Each structure stands twice: as structure tokens, then as C-alpha cells.
């Protein structure tokens, strides 16, 4: 049963080795060429697509990288050899680890969020289109969609006011002689010379196309179909002045200026009016300043910040204590059932954690949960408030999250502690006993220090892991419960689940900028912990 940790056995060419040997040499070279050719074919297709989308910088990068890689794999230079082994992993590392990190940094210094996704030019034209409204006493037209001689969609229009008839295209409005068009009793065109009117089923299929169809008239005004028989003239309510880079509201002359934060704004403070949408722009340290200054962000952030540390520390401390206690209890030579106990106690570690978490969320459920029923309790495990009135920091949901995390992690520390305990030579504890040490004293002065040498680095690693243990929080409580209505931050949210909600799952729009700023803060903390760990274990020096 005592399987040794994996070590290299002496070399015996087994079946696999012989099978692999068959594919070496010329065959291996051919395999390499085939793989390289496949990769190049994939790139060729990518190049075609990139040209189609006119993504020139991306195209240049792809072509250059591919040429470089081909060259490295085909030249027999000694310096290229390590690269041949490193390139496959590095491509993915750069694409989906390094670039996301760099991208996170750039986003953190921008206002990238719902409502600030377009470029400024796109935002300006969107605002122009959005400002189109039917003016009072505007022109209304009877309309019949038709196709011209080349099959393109046009609108045959009859101005109800002046009685003139036109053909409208996406380029503009052209007058038609009255004799060329016949109208029915309601004024709707029924035929037009040179055009084929569209009827019935075909008309219904054009529904979406019609909805987006615009016939520009004078200035920024346009005709918009409303249904299939009527079109109305829309006029802009805002005018863009390119020279001054402002929007002017036509009705009251109010001026909307670029506020430097990606929006056209008029007025200040409470009475400020903002035009939708805004655009994406760089806003410097604004997101970080919001974390420090903006009371709406600062409050929840620092509460989450503190809880994240407490959560990670509590998980490690209690799991380690429980694991060590179990290990001490079971570390008795010749004890019966020792091995059976050990295998059963590892089960929580073997079940995929996401399943255990979801099941625990059910068992702890306040209303229907098994825990409350079996133990005849009435504890609001998942949705409750603070436990002690004098200590708002500790709430039932926070206790539950730690309890379940400890349940999940204890087996790991149990196994590790058991191994470490059994590697401590008996002579040491025997000697302490001879010197007259009590059992507890021996444990404190001899066993524990020796144990910590082996386990401390693992505790640091476990802390770093739990610091970002998204699943343990999100799958149990979803980060909740929520006290305020305006904030995204729940009582059990840790930094990473808060980031996730800011970016993806809020239902109140996404704030990629703030999410990325929080991500950078997480990065510095985790890097600090890892750096401390490296310094402690000096494992960087063992980079050989």
C-alpha cells in the first residue's frame, strides 16, 4: 500500500518507448513537417480572415510571428533547440496570460464600462442618430416599399401635406412625376412606373430591414418607416459643432461639452445632463481614486478587503489546526483501522469541490436545510446578519463560508501533517521524554517546530490560494447577502468575486475599468505573498 512518491526508475525501454522510437528519425521529421504545415495552413486561413476584416496590425503580427516560428523550427542551429521546446507553451502563455495582464492594466486606467464602449467618433454619430425625433407638425408620408430595376429596396412615398410623390433611397429623396404613380383612396401608392411594389409574405420578411431603413432629407433630418405603410420625417434635436467639439440642443441652445471622462455633459452637480452613449477614453488614476475617495466604492471595497484577508487566514488556520489534530490522533503505530480512517477522511478532498459547495449550500439553506432540521436549530446560515450585536464583522454567512472551506481543506492538511509527523525521527521525542518533558511540552517544543518547517510554505501557498477562492464564496452564498440596494458588494464577497460582479455578472452594467483596478490590487497582494514565500523558502536560489 505504501506507494512511494514518483521517482525515476532505471531505464527499461518499454512498449511506449519502442513505439515512440518507431516514429523517430525520418518518420519523426515527416511528422514535424506535417504538424508545421498544418499550423501554417491554419495561419493562412487566419490571414485570409484578417485581410477580410482589414485588421492590418494584427495581420502584421501574425505573419511576422509565423515566419519567425517556421524559421526556428526549420533551421538546424544550436541556439534554436531550446526554443523549439518552449515556443508551443509560450504562444498560449503570451496570448492568454501575458496579454490579459497587460490589457487589465490598460483597462484599469480607462473608463471602459457599459455606456463607454464605443470610440468617440462612433459615440458622436450614435448620439446624432439617437437625437432624431418627429417634430411637431412634421411631414408624414404614405409609403409603399418597392424594388427598383436592379432589385434594390426603395420606398415610394406620397407626402400627405403637399400631395407630391417621391422615391426614397438610402441616398436621398427624388421627386417623381405624379403621372408615374397611382394612389389608392387612402393615398397609399399602389403602383409606380419603373418600380415593382412589394406585397404579402415578402413584405413581412423585410420587417427588420425596413425598421433600420433611413432616407436622408435636408440637413441631418431623415425619413423613417413606421410599419409598412407610413413613413415620418425625423429631425435632429441636437446639433454637433465639430469646430468647438460640442453638442448644442436646438430647442433651448444648451451646450454639452466633452468632460474629459468620455461624455458630453452640460451643467454641473445635481443639474448635470449627460448625453448617451459616452465613449472609451483614458482617465488616469481615476478608478484608483474612486476606490479611495468615492464613498459609494470605498465603503464596500474596504469592507471586502478586510474580509478577504480574514477569510483566507481563517481558512488556513482552522483547516491546519483540524488537520493537525486529526493527524496527531491517528498517528499511533499499530492502531487498528488507521488506514481505513485515513482513506475515508480524504473523501471530502476527492469530490470535485464545486459539487460539495453546491450541496453544502443546500444543506445549510436557512429555510429547507438539513443542518437546521437535523440539529433542531434555527440559524440563518446563508442569509443571516451579524452574530453578535457588538461585533458587526462576524455574520452567520461568513461563518458558514469558513466552515465549508475548512471542511474542504482539512483533508489536505491532515495528509500533509500526517506525513510530516511520521517523518520526525522517534529519537527526538524519546530524548525529550528522557529529559523529563511532558507530552504537551514535547509537542510544543519539539514536534510543532519541526512540523512547521515542512508545512509553513504550504500554509502560505494555501493562504494565497484561498485569497482568491472564488468558488468557496460564490457557489455558497453568491457573495450575498446584500444589505444596501445600490451596492454590488455582498456580505461574504471577497475581492475576486467583487471583481467578477463588477465586470460580468452584475445585471447593472459592467464596469471593466473598476474591475481591472481591483484586479491589479489583488495582483500586488498575491505577488507580495508569493514573494514573501520565496524569500522564506529561498526556493528562487534553487532554480537550477
Amino acid at each position, binding site marked *: *500500500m*505504501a506507494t512511494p*512518491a*514518483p*521517482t*525515476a526508475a532505471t531505464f527499461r525501454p518499454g512498449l*511506449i*518507448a519502442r513505439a*515512440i*522510437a518507431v516514429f*523517430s528519425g525520418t518518420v*519523426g521529421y515527416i511528422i514535424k513537417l506535417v504538424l508545421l504545415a498544418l499550423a501554417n495552413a491554419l495561419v493562412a486561413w487566419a490571414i485570409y480572415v484578417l485581410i477580410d476584416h482589414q*485588421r492590418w496590425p494584427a495581420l502584421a503580427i501574425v505573419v511576422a510571428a509565423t515566419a519567425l516560428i517556421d524559421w526556428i523550427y526549420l533551421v*538546424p542551429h*544550436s*541556439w534554436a*533547440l*531550446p526554443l523549439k*521546446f*518552449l515556443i*508551443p*507553451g509560450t504562444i*498560449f*502563455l503570451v*496570448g*492568454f496570460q501575458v496579454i490579459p495582464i497587460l490589457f*487589465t492594466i490598460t483597462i484599469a486606467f480607462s473608463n471602459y464600462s457599459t455606456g463607454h464602449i464605443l470610440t468617440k467618433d462612433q459615440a458622436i454619430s450614435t448620439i446624432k442618430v439617437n437625437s432624431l425625433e418627429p417634430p411637431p407638425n412634421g411631414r408624414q408620408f404614405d409609403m409603399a416599399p418597392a424594388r427598383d430595376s436592379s432589385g434594390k429596396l426603395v420606398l415610394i412615398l406620397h407626402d400627405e401635406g403637399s400631395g407630391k410623390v417621391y422615391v426614397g433611397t438610402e441616398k436621398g429623396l427624388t421627386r417623381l412625376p405624379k403621372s408615374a404613380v397611382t394612389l389608392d383612396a387612402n393615398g397609399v401608392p399602389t403602383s409606380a412606373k419603373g418600380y415593382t411594389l412589394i406585397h404579402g409574405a415578402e413584405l413581412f420578411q423585410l420587417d427588420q430591414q425596413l425598421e433600420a431603413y433611413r432616407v436622408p432629407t435636408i440637413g441631418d433630418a431623415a425619413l423613417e418607416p413606421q410599419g409598412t405603410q407610413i413613413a415620418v420625417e425625423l429631425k435632429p434635436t441636437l446639433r454637433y459643432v465639430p469646430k468647438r467639439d460640442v453638442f448644442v440642443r436646438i430647442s433651448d441652445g444648451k451646450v454639452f461639452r466633452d468632460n474629459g471622462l468620455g461624455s458630453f455633459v452640460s451643467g454641473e452637480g445635481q443639474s448635470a445632463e449627460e448625453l448617451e452613449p459616452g465613449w472609451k477614453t483614458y482617465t488616469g488614476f481615476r478608478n484608483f481614486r474612486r476606490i479611495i475617495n468615492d464613498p459609494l466604492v470605498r465603503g464596500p471595497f474596504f469592507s471586502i478587503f478586510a474580509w478577504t484577508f480574514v477569510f483566507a487566514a481563517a481558512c488556513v488556520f482552522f483547516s491546519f489546526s483540524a488537520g493537525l489534530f*486529526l493527524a496527531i*490522533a491517528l498517528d*499511533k503505530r*499499530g*492502531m*487498528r483501522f488507521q488506514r481505513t*480512517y485515513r482513506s475515508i*477522511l480524504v*473523501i471530502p*478532498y*476527492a*469530490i*470535485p469541490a*464545486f459539487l*460539495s459547495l453546491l450541496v453544502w449550500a*443546500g*444543506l445549510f439553506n436557512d429555510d429547507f436545510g438539513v443542518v437546521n432540521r437535523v440539529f433542531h436549530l434555527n440559524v440563518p446560515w446563508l442569509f443571516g446578519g451579524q452574530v453578535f450585536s457588538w461585533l458587526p464583522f462576524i455574520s452567520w454567512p461568513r461563518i458558514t463560508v469558513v466552515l465549508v472551506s475548512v*471542511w474542504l481543506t482539512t483533508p*489536505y492538511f491532515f495528509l500533509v501533517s500526517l*506525513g510530516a509527523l*511520521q*517523518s520526525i525521527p522517534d529519537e527526538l521525542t524519546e530524548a525529550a521524554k528522557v529529559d523529563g518533558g511532558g507530552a504537551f511540552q514535547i509537542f510544543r517544543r519539539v514536534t510543532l517546530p519541526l512540523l512547521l518547517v515542512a508545512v509553513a*510554505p*504550504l500554509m502560505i501557498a494555501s493562504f494565497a490560494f484561498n485569497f*482568491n477562492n472564488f*468558488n468557496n464564496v460564490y457557489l455558497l452564498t453568491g457573495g450575498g447577502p446584500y444589505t444596501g440596494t445600490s451596492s454590488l458588494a455582498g456580505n461574504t464577497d471577497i475581492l*475576486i468575486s467583487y471583481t*467578477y460582479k463588477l465586470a460580468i455578472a452584475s445585471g447593472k452594467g459592467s464596469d*471593466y475599468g473598476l474591475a481591472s483596478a481591483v*484586479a491589479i490590487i489583488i*495582483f500586488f497582494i498575491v505577488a507580495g505573498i508569493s514573494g514573501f514565500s520565496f524569500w522564506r523558502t529561498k526556493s*528562487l536560489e534553487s*532554480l537550477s
Partner: protein
Amino acid sequence: MTEVEAEITPQSAIVVPAVAVASKAPKSKPKLKDTWWRHLVAILAICIALFPVVYIVSSAFNADNNLSDAQVFPTNPTLNNFSELLHNNVIANTGAQQDVPYPRWFLNSMLIAGLTALATTMLGALAAYAFSRFRFKGRRMGMMALLLIQMFPQFVAVAAIYLIVYNLGGIFPAIGLDKLAAVVIVYLGGAMGVQAWLMKGFFDTIPAELDESARVDGATAAQIFWGVVLPLAAPVLAVVALISFVFTLNEFVIASALLQSTNHLTLPVGMYHLISDQYDKTWGPFTAGALLAALPVSILFMFLQRWIVSGLTAGSVKG
């Protein structure tokens, strides 16, 4: 191609805390009256450890969907929950039918985790071999850079990854949002992480003389890698693949950010949506699904448990 002279370095032992048990022979069987408290602790701990497991199993066979009716011994044991789940015929207590394509989720998860584990092991092994066997300019720098980059957990950049995949999908729809392939290639960004360090440590313990003799016989670096080092490293490759598999299977953040349509979800995301906020309605099918998903992984895990723990330990020490 025998250009690179691999220096023969002193074998740096892989950092594996001794988890070898039962190597010490018992001097004498301890009496029960001295060890009874140890048994008591163990039995109590087992009760806590198995508490949710018991309820998964019993609820899976219970005829009622209600969490509030969950019992240790179901009164009317039935396979209904399983058949509802496998035929996408989950009906909540309210009578509403829910779209729960469990087999699809299972398949998606196995595909994503399987492909990721396979590719991660391969890419990691290639990099580990280069760092273990070649002495080249920038090697130390490269390893330091890798360590530094890996400090940033990939899923922390979830906002950036979401936007990258969103934009990528605008050009290459096959690797855009809601595509399994996109999730796999994003996961592969971590392939040169902890696992590569674990393998490098192991490769370091394989005597360089073996490479040397193969090279004398005219083998190229690629032949030595595929023919000598990889077969010898088979156990560590298996462990790395399994760790990567379990880790990927549990991943929630990126999968839930990138995948959207019900049919494309992975098990964690799908089962979260199945059960969250309706514990009183779909508890039966949910536990059946949990049982089906947990069994294969748990058995495999228990089987390779010793190696996995030593692997995780070594990984966390090294990186």
C-alpha cells in the same frame, strides 16, 4: 543535431515532503483502552466528512424533489431523478419543466477538462524539458519571468479575458464567446504554470547519463525527449494530467464568463444555475447529477491520492 551540450548538473531532488506512511514497524499492538479517544476522534471526523455525501446519495434516490424532505434513508427509493436528468426532463416541484441538458454539460466538461489536461501536460513537459536539460542564454531569466507571470492568477484578469474573447469572436467566430474551443485555449495560457515546475523537478531527477548515452547512439534532442525522458516520466505525467483535469473541471469564473447558451455550459456553471435559488424545487435531480459527476473523479482521485498530494505539495513549494 547534437549541438547543445547539456551540462551534467548535480541532481536537484524534487521537493516532496515525506508522505510515506507505515514504513515503521509496530513494536507492539497498542491496547484499545489507550487508543479509544483516537477512535472516537476518527469516528466523529468521519461523520462530519461523510455528512454531505450521505445526503447526496440518499437524495439522489429519493422520490421527492424537496430539500426539506431529504432523509438519510429514502422511504421510496427510485431511479426517477436519474432518468429525468439523462432525458432532459427535469420538472420542478412547481410543475414547470426546466431545460437541463445534463448529458451535454457532462460532455462539455469532460471535453474541456480532458483536452486542457492533455495539452497542458504536453506543453508543460516540452517547456520543462528545455529548462531541465538545456543550458542556454536567458534560461534563468526565463524561469524567473515564468514564476513572476504565474503569480497573477489567470481568472483575476477575467474582465480582460472576456473582452479579448469578445473581440476575437468578432473576427474568428469559432473562438469567440460561447464556444468551448475558446475556453480551452484560454485555459492553455496557464499550461506553463505550476505543472511545468513539477515536471521540471522530476526531469531533473532523471540521470543525464541516459540522455548522454542516447545521444552517443545518434539520437536527436527530440528523440531523447520522446523516447527516453517521457516514458520514464509517465507517472508524473499522469499526476500532472489528473491535477490539471480536476482543476479545470472545478473552474467557474472563466467558464461562466465566456459560455452563455444552456447547451454550452460546463458542469459547475450548469449545475449552479440548476440549483441556485431553487433548492426546494430541483434538489432530487441535482443530487443525482452531483453523484454521477463526482463518482468517476473521486474514484480516480482516491486511486492516485498519494501521488496527487505529493504533486500539489511540490508544486506549491516550487511555484
